[in-house]
């Protein structure tokens, strides 16, 4: 079972690496932020698996905090991004 979970960690880490490539490439800010969200989700999965494999139950708490704050960061990104689109004159945003 441990081997299976470790392989799963490896796979998710590979996905996380692909997400990093997407952060580096961009090209737009939104692409980068979506990639950061993907990394956040992958990080939560890795933490849950690592907590089980290595017997650190507190890793679940770190995963909980990441889940809540990654959501918060993406919303903050959308709010700041919208206000920027408006100042660029790219059209009225839905909310401000």
């Amino acid at each position: 079972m441990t081997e299976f979970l470790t392989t799963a960690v490896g796979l998710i880490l590979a996905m996380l690496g692909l997400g990093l490539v997407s952060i580096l490439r961009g090209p737009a800010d939104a692409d980068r932020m979506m990639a950061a969200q993907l990394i956040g989700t992958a990080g939560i999965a890795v933490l849950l698996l690592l907590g089980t494999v290595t017997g650190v139950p507190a890793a679940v708490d770190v995963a909980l905090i990441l889940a809540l704050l990654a959501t918060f960061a993406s919303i903050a990104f959308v709010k700041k991004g919208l206000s920027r689109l408006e100042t660029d004159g790219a059209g009225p945003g839905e909310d401000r």
Partner: protein
Amino acid sequence: MSIATVFEIALAVVVLGLAIWTIAVPDTYSATVGFIAYGLLVALIWVRLDAVDVALTEAAIGGGLGGVVLLGAAARLRGTEAMTMERPSLIVRLSAAALSASIAAALAVAILLPPNPAPTLAPDVVSNAGATGMANPVTNVLMAFRAMDTMLEKVVLLLAIVGVWSLASDQAWGGRPGPRHQADPNGVLAFLARLLPPAGIVVGIYILWTGADHPGGAFQGGAVLASMWLLVIMAGLVDTPPVRSRWLRLVLVAGPGLFLVVGLGGLCFGSAFLAYPAAFAKPLILSIEAAMLLTIATTLGLLLAGAPERSAER
């Protein structure tokens, strides 16, 4: 070499690469997003190093609230960045490079050449863990053995909020921080701002409560509560409170205030400042932490909301 070691080496290489890219990329916004991802990955590394308390703080501050502060700053700077053509002179850049390189060299020396055996108080902390009735050594150090440092830290948070407020213009003095957010009441943002905070509040209080015996504590819990508060503000469901309001200021001083009262109590009835009577150590520490949870959540929320921009009447 085991497969776990391979993963750890790969993770370390990825984090180093991302850190270098974050410094090198010219665009502020991209650098900020890189920094948020970097915070998430560093939290993973702290868990692998068995420093779960640090991982919690890194996830809450490095990846979450700190990232949002930087996003806000990047959004604000974007307009001015395009207009600045001025480049620092060669001497300024060379001396900045020399300063950074010497700091990096000093850090490298400190890390690569530690005294042998390394000075540590960890065995003392473990052997005295029973004195407070709490099993988490980090909480023991923060709240009992080095409680003075923690109390002064909370005072620093108060000073920080005073510093942010002092940036307000004369008209907005004592008013509400940040813009008034408006969102579609039936939109997805308002829905999320109703759905997420109940779960987030439970998680925040749980992180405080579990901090007595397992990794966790008031700061991490307070950061979660602050993010939930800001989410509701950003969705336009509530407005930021005017900074002149009395209850707000009472909450801001509640944590350090209670800490100080308990500390003076130790001076009057016990042996020293902040000496907890052994029978009441755990209840006293938990009540200080509960007050600090509220104070930290409010302080972090207000730090992110920024300086007052509107007068309270509007």
